[in-house]
């Protein structure tokens, strides 16, 4: 075990995926030790490709991520369907090294590459009625073998409040370790909301809809008493079946204390002022 832990601590880039040029160092990056490319790409919860952590790496390699259109629709002035490679040119790509805290009480430090979602949303010009953003993932049981079993209600859907979606921390990720995002991590593009549990980070996004009412979210529909809409990392509010007070950072032996909002409280706590976070979990 010590050997494998030592291996986890190593960090390196992926050998085969094309590099993403002209990366700008984005704000909010942590200087904590980054998890290895190997660990980040072989320990994934991505049930569309199987429920075992190693299934996505094994089953996602043939998943076609180009061409890929993403539809922006609903309460915006500029609804449109954009090819993902076009979207990448809208703004400079940024590298953001974020902590990722899974609802299963483990965590990683991941060097994402992506676009701030807020920049994209401002360009789309939400109307006065837009209060939430609803994301839909790809439905493709032929290429996503996990969707052939009704483990979850497919396709995967997620949502954010508009102010969460436009928060400077929120990222639409298209890369990892300076290279194109591997399929098992949600290629061609996925959501990264570092102060929320990992399941909010919907992968293989095809549709982004701006709506008035809180949209349904997959894990909340599956078990509403266990997974809330907000899903902010909160050591004080346990999952009904396990504690959220501590987490195991992948590659480390001892558990560490989980921080409120996954350590991003200074940036995001104000979004939830006046809310009872025990009830809105």
């Amino acid at each position, binding site marked *: 075990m010590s050997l494998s832990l030592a291996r986890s601590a190593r960090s390196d880039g992926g050998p085969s995926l094309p590099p993403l040029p002209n990366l700008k160092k984005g704000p909010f990056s942590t200087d904590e030790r980054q998890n290895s490319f190997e660990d980040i790409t072989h320990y994934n919860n991505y049930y569309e490709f199987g429920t075992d952590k190693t299934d996505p790496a094994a089953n996602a390699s043939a998943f076609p991520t180009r061409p890929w259109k993403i539809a922006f629709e609903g309460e915006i002035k500029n609804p449109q369907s954009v090819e993902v490679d076009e979207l990448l040119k809208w703004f400079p790509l940024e590298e953001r090294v974020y902590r990722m805290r899974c609802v299963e009480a483990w965590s990683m430090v991941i060097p994402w590459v992506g676009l701030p979602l807020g920049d994209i949303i401002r360009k789309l010009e939400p109307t006065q009625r837009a209060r939430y953003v609803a994301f839909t993932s790809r439905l493709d049981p032929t290429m996503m073998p996990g969707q052939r079993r009704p483990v979850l209600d497919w396709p995967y859907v997620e949502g954010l409040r508009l102010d969460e979606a436009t928060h400077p921390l929120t990222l639409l990720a298209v890369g990892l370790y300076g290279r194109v995002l591997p399929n098992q991590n949600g290629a061609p593009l996925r959501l990264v909301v570092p102060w929320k549990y990992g399941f909010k980070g919907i992968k293989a996004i095809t549709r982004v809809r701006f709506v008035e009412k809180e949209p349904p979210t997959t894990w909340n529909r599956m078990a509403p008493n266990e997974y809330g809409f907000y899903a902010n990392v909160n050591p004080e509010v346990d999952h009904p079946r396990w504690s959220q007070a501590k987490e*195991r950072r992948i590659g480390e032996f001892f*558990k560490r204390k989980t921080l409120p909002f996954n350590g991003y409280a200074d940036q995001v706590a104000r979004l939830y002022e006046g809310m009872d976070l025990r009830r809105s979990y």
Partner: protein
Amino acid sequence: MNRLVRSAVFAGFCLPLALMGIEGLGGRLGANPIANLMNRLGFWALFFLLLSLAATPLKMLFGWSSPVRFRRMAGLFAFFYASFHLTTYVAVDQFFDLPAIAADIVKRKFITIGLLAFLLLVPLAITSTDRWVRRLGFVRWKRVHRLSYLAAVCGVIHFVWRVKADLLQPTIFGVVLAGLFAVRLFSPRIPRSRAAAGGALSEGTAGP
């Protein structure tokens, strides 16, 4: 020959643990080795428990008598894997954080019932020797060892309550266990094997 077969079965039962050991030494237990080990040890504990419970139904259904000869070994391996599973949780995953463990046992029903399953196996492992069969008398000994069914039920529930969404594996265990129950309940009684030489343990009976 008999000895050879027993050794081969014993080695086979050790195989899952040996594989985990080899993977561990080679650093191939994945990104989260502790969770990997804990899940696999739990899986095999339940597997061997159900295997031990399958011996009598197999005999009732198909007249196979050889599985009964390995029933005790399978049961002890279930206890062995369950012990490693629990030890990994206490000593590695939680690193003896006793308040956290106590809170888990009280607050998390999947842990409560998992611990119960393990505790039920303890007296069965202790009384698994021939000496204990004689001390208790075969009828009473058998009655005590029916606790293994209760332990298996608790083990399956422990698994069902643990998984996040994919109930496939725990469901398979549950269906197999229910099938084993059904065979015992609904099969026509087969004649009690003659209390012959060799004794109850090595011969095994279909039970009431």
